[in-house]
């Protein structure tokens, strides 16, 4: 067991956790932040992507015990004061989601892309999102949504 203190979506959290608790496990099972999804357990699908200290990572293969002192943002923390983030707005406008299961990871990944590249091309968007699998949309509207968000941010 290890005690860690982290900040999740702007709130300070201090928890005693098992050594093998993953960040996704901490978020979902201990903090009840179930917006972060587990789709594969092997860091292949990207449904679990969150931001740690501003960078997107796959939370299903990050050990929570390693993250003492870090700042975590999940899909629940993206909107502020009830106003959707431009990326969330764009996914809605362009129908970039269907069943919604991959969406939290996809959105968190896309937000990080725009931090790195302000106006990515279609190919750059597709390359960046290669680690996030979506089975519903065929990615067409996801790419459109990221471009839409880039134009608004």
């Amino acid at each position: 067991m290890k005690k860690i203190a982290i900040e999740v979506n702007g709130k300070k959290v201090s928890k005693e956790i098992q050594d093998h608790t993953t960040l996704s496990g901490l978020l979902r099972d201990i903090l009840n932040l179930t917006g972060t999804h587990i789709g594969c357990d092997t860091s292949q699908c990207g449904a679990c992507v969150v931001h740690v200290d501003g960078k997107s990572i796959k939370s299903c293969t990050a050990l929570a015990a390693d993250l003492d002192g870090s700042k975590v943002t999940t899909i629940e923390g993206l909107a502020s004061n009830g106003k959707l983030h431009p990326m969330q707005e764009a996914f809605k406008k362009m129908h970039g989601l269907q069943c919604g299961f991959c969406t939290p990871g996809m959105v968190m990944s896309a937000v990080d892309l725009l931090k790195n590249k302000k106006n990515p091309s279609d190919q750059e968007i597709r390359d960046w999102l290669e680690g996030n699998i979506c089975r519903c949309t065929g990615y067409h509207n996801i790419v459109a949504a990221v471009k839409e968000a880039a134009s608004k941010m």
Partner: protein
Amino acid sequence: MASLVGSRVERKEDKRFLTGKGRYTSDINIANQTYAIFIRSPHARAKIKKIDTSKALKSSGVVEILTGEHIAQDKIGGLIAGWAIRSEDGSEMKCPANPPLAKDSVNFVGDPVAVVFAETLDEARAAADLVKVDYKVLKAVSNLSEAMNSEAIHDGIEKNLCYDWLLGDRQKVKEAFEKADKIIKLDINNNRLIPNAMEPRACVIDYNTASEEITCYTTSQNPHLSRLIMSAFGGVAPENKLRVVAPDVGGGFGSKINLYNEEIVCSWASKKIERPIKWVAERTESFLTDTHGRDHITHAELAVTNDGKFLGFKNETIANLGAYARVFGTVTPTYLFGPCATGVYIMPAAYSNVKAVYTNTAPVDAYRGAGRPEATYTIERIVDKAAMELGMDPIEIRMKNFPTEFPFKQTLVHQIDSGDYVAGLNKAKEMADYDGFAARKKESESKGKLRGIGVTSYFEACGIAPSPVVMMLGCGVGLWESAEVRFNPTGQVTVYTGSHSHGQSHQTTFAQIAADELGVPMENIDVVHGDTDKGTFGMGTYGSRSLTVGGIAIVNACKKIVNKGKRIAAKMLEASPDEVDFKNGEFVVAKSNKKKTIGEVAFASYLPGVRDEVKSPLPEGDEPGLIESSFFDPANFSFPAGSHICEVEIDPETGHVKLDKYTAVDDFGTIVNPLIVEGQVHGGLAQGIGQALYENAQYDDSGQLITASYMDYTMPRADDLPNFNLGFTCTKATTNPLGVKGCGEAGTIASTPTVMNAVINALGGKEISLPATAEKVWKACKEMKKSNAKAA
């Protein structure tokens, strides 16, 4: 009020999904819940000699361990095939028992034999490792082409044959073939796929010891049907003591139609241990135990004249059922496949013969398109081959054989109510710049690349209903759909549907329809589905049936509401119901300014006698309230159709196939929400392209699934696909009041042959099996080079 049908309305469901507030089954936790881990067979085929749970039972945190013996003791029934298919000789199909936990024998890797319930997931996992199962391993039947000549897997099922089915007339086909100038022959596979909804299957069970009611939260496409099967066949509990809830479901694609072992076992066990139970599949469990799709071997022949007219068609197929026959397992390779195998063409004579066999692999069932992709792949590949052998253009040969008059009686079963195949193909040809292909091919060649173009024209039979037809064909239930529309006294509307959304956007589309019918703003309409305690009954969502069957039930229920509303408004306005018109949410007396809004009428209906203008607004014979329901059973399937064209560029040095351009032109009749329909097409295309280029479920000779993770099973990713170029034509369906046709599966149905036709075109007609992986294409390119060198 402008009509909402036809508008690109943004989705009502998006906000919760985009803010992490969706509620999927694995998000649900119940106080005091236990965690389930299933112990699964590591062997494809074995006898269970002994299961020793003694050590595991003493493990920390273990609450209970149950096996097939307990299932048998409690007489819990198993999983079933939903369709009874007869062989050509009239004999009934042969189906093995499929108990929820195997007791005597296991038949595929992943077949569950026992289950551990413990206080924590870690404890359940640790205890599961201590359960000792002694197997006598038998030789597995894992190869489809050898299954009929292998040892029988199930007692009494000779040749592993479930049925040997025929649709069509062998004699007529023989005569047609005798008249042909040329017989085109094709041997193809239809590769096995794993649906891979992004949400792994899960169930959370809550047993209420006071009411003795079991609530099963589960990842299902049809919760009512799951409850029915679990009750009627599983004997878990009577339906009134069993509530099945499918909350937000993260994709299905057919894999969540079936009721599965885990739902039966956990529902039954929850009552036994008097504790809630949570089970969530790991991805590899999903790979191993979700129903798989496709998996055919087909020999087809097409009889043609020298000028490209089709005379007759033969389809001889062996279909893999996997280890057991499940709900749509037996109908997918027969009635969902055979009739569509003659494609969009006038085909004077045809038959489809299908032998469905058991193998020691996961059960095969409906996967997006279910039978129709396999059918379309068969006909569209052989039509292309015919064009090539006759030296004709692939578009010309298709045009030559299209029907141009509707209704069109298709060769084997269907009476197609409407369509315009010529318009669709012409539009696709123009959008794809078909005529510019030669120049683009030249350009690719100048870079050392190969370029190919592929065409597919398809129709499909979906909107799976009507009850009299499906029951005649062997379905165990009628496939209608129900809806209930309730006005609250204060004017908001709740629509209950038996249909289920797991990505299809029912909350938006159905609200658009109801808003148009009732003249109530969409934001005041809630669509409720997925809970057997809410709404009457439903047959669920599959076969592109939600809108064409479930949506129409909503329309009809709304029409009943309006009719009752007219009677009430007439009484309130002191007019006769015949004089009252309903438009834009208002009941208006003809040639007057007297009117009532539907909200006022709804309010009045709940408060008979309180309104001051009349003593009671309710006419004689009408009961209070404004609630109506409808069961809709259409007169026919719906028949979407279209033409797709794609171009690929192949690098002969690596075998990499770049999907360069993809154009899809579809006819879905009336489109309620273009934004959503386009999304359905995009997703369908990605899955069909995945089948053509990437996806393949592979078992080894011992029956081990060697593609059981995302490292081994290639899912199409963002950088594998292009942007899609979509177009639509419209001929309205004549069998429903909206004129709608199903749109959910079309993309999957058309895209696999489109891509393969393009790949094979690029390879100069060289046949290649599905999927066209870089390795296979590279080898084909090498051979091409060799034979070109020889010819030179």
